[in-house]
């Protein structure tokens, strides 16, 4: 308790809770609204809808453009996750365990893609791939997504690695394991929550990425957000609400997984 009941007047507290309730609703409003809208029968997004229907879902799943986009999104996100973790894991080890000059600076470099506005990364990478003729390829999508996903995986892994007491790994070595065995059998299991969190972050970042994807996309290869983006600029059809609901659904799913992983490690600790 921050202010004890006596140190904070009742009116102050009620006012605060009321305000907070409204802000909480404000946070939930667009999310709930869009999910409801995807089931509404009105073509013109009238709310509350005159009736409920699944026809927009039918349209979404029977339209090859939307389906291809969704599939591409999934593919890009999975590949991004794999590469971000593969690159992030050794980097995190080096940054936490290494003792070399410029460590801070390198850490700064690795988190730079988080700070540099996405638009600039998008334009820069677009220029490169335009020259190389790679725009519109899976390669371009994955590379650009890994750039922005990498800081998330590195930071999560660094955080859990810092909590891990390296002397436990040394103990495994004393017990007869090689350093490599010790890392795989002792350290990796211990930092798994950080690795999983990093992977989930990478997946979410890629899954929801708009700016980079819009620049990388071609008529033949586009992700779900790109398809939504281009459709949005023409009209507000309820099929976009369906796509949004799917995006939201997957985000929620990933969050639930993250929470479950966290709870399991908490109860084990």
């Amino acid at each position, binding site marked *: 308790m*921050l*202010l004890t009941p006596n*140190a904070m*007047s009742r009116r*102050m*507290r009620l006012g*605060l*809770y009321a305000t*907070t309730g409204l*802000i909480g609703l*404000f*946070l*939930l*409003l667009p*999310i709930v*609204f*869009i999910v409801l*809208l995807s089931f509404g029968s009105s073509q*013109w997004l009238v*709310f509350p809808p005159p009736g409920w229907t699944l026809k927009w879902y039918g349209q979404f799943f029977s339209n090859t453009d939307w389906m291809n986009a969704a599939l591409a999104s999934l593919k890009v996100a999975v590949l991004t996750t794999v590469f971000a973790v593969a*690159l*992030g894991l*050794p*980097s995190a080890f*080096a*940054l*936490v365990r*290494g*003792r070399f*000059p410029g460590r801070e600076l390198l850490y700064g*470099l690795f988190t730079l893609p988080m*700070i*540099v*506005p*996405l*638009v*600039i*990364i998008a*334009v*820069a990478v677009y*220029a*490169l791939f335009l020259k190389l003729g790679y725009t519109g390829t899976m390669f371009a999508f994955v590379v*650009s997504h890994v*750039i922005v996903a*990498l800081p998330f995986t590195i930071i999560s892994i*660094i955080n859990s690695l810092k909590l891990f007491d390296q002397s436990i790994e040394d103990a495994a070595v004393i017990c007869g394991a090689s*350093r*490599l065995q010790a890392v795989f059998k002792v350290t990796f299991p211990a930092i798994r929550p950080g690795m999983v969190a990093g992977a989930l972050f990478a997946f979410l970042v890629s*899954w929801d990425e*708009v700016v980079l994807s819009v*620049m990388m996309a071609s008529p033949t290869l586009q992700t779900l957000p790109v398809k939504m*983006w281009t459709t*949005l600029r023409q009209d*507000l059809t309820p099929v*976009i*609400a369906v*796509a949004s609901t799917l*995006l*939201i659904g997957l985000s929620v799913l*990933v969050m639930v997984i993250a929470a479950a992983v966290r709870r399991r490690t908490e109860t084990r600790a």
Partner: protein
Amino acid sequence: MKMTATTPTGSALGAAGAVCSKAVSPPLAQRWRGAGNLIPALLFLGLFFLAPLIGLLLRGVLEPVPGLGNYEQLFANSAYARVLLNTFSVAGLVTLFSLLLGFPLAWAITLVPRGWGRWMLNIVLLSMWTSLLARTYSWLVLLQASGVINKALLAMGIIDVPLEMVHNLTGVVIGMSYIMIPFIVLPLQATMQAIDPMILQAGSICGASPWTNFFRVFLPLCRPGLFSGGLMVFVMSLGYYVTPALLGGAQNMMLPEFIIQQVQSFLNWGLASAGAALLIFITLVLFYFYLKLQPESPVGASHAR
């Protein structure tokens, strides 16, 4: 690369560090111990992030002709200057509103019993990790002339004519403030959680009424969280593209949209690059101040305690 020769990069994760270091001069190997693991990621970032970035920035002084022409144009042309002004005023307004909305939320999360607080934090996290595009689309529908909000206001008799809330400044500020709230709440809540409740009791026994206590003790103690959250949101707002592009109108274009427009519509890479350089410069300067506000380095002192 000189360090590859002296560091045991062959084995994964610096595993063979102790073994190989016998072969080369110890001080140097010691100096670069474990650095080899960085090489894959460094190569990747160097090739696909740093090189294109530098390439882009160079175009600003090389295209169409070498010189500072693009920058002159950027500052001299009143339409472009308005883009800059817009960028800053939107970012400022968004920071202000997200602070105003995020502060009570963070405070309440700290005050309510733990279970409730966790739920409220979950809502904040949910909104943070829910698709940006989906939320922006939702606001587009909610705020449009025939949208729910206008209809509700009309029905309640508060307004007679639908308010124009999209494709203008209002829409951008509403949508972006909404998106930025979690970035205020999370650091601010951490700051508030760390405040010793006894200090507020001390304030009240010293004679401070609840309001005085709030303004003279609590608020000053929240200042670090308010500053770092606010600065972060301001920096992020400067570089946002999706929400302003969808909810804003042509007359309130911001710098990111301007850059994309120059590239995609006018193929004017020189001017786009000048804009990008400006945006990066401002971002990095502000981020430097942000880091100054942070108490400790993220990688440093890992084994100190």
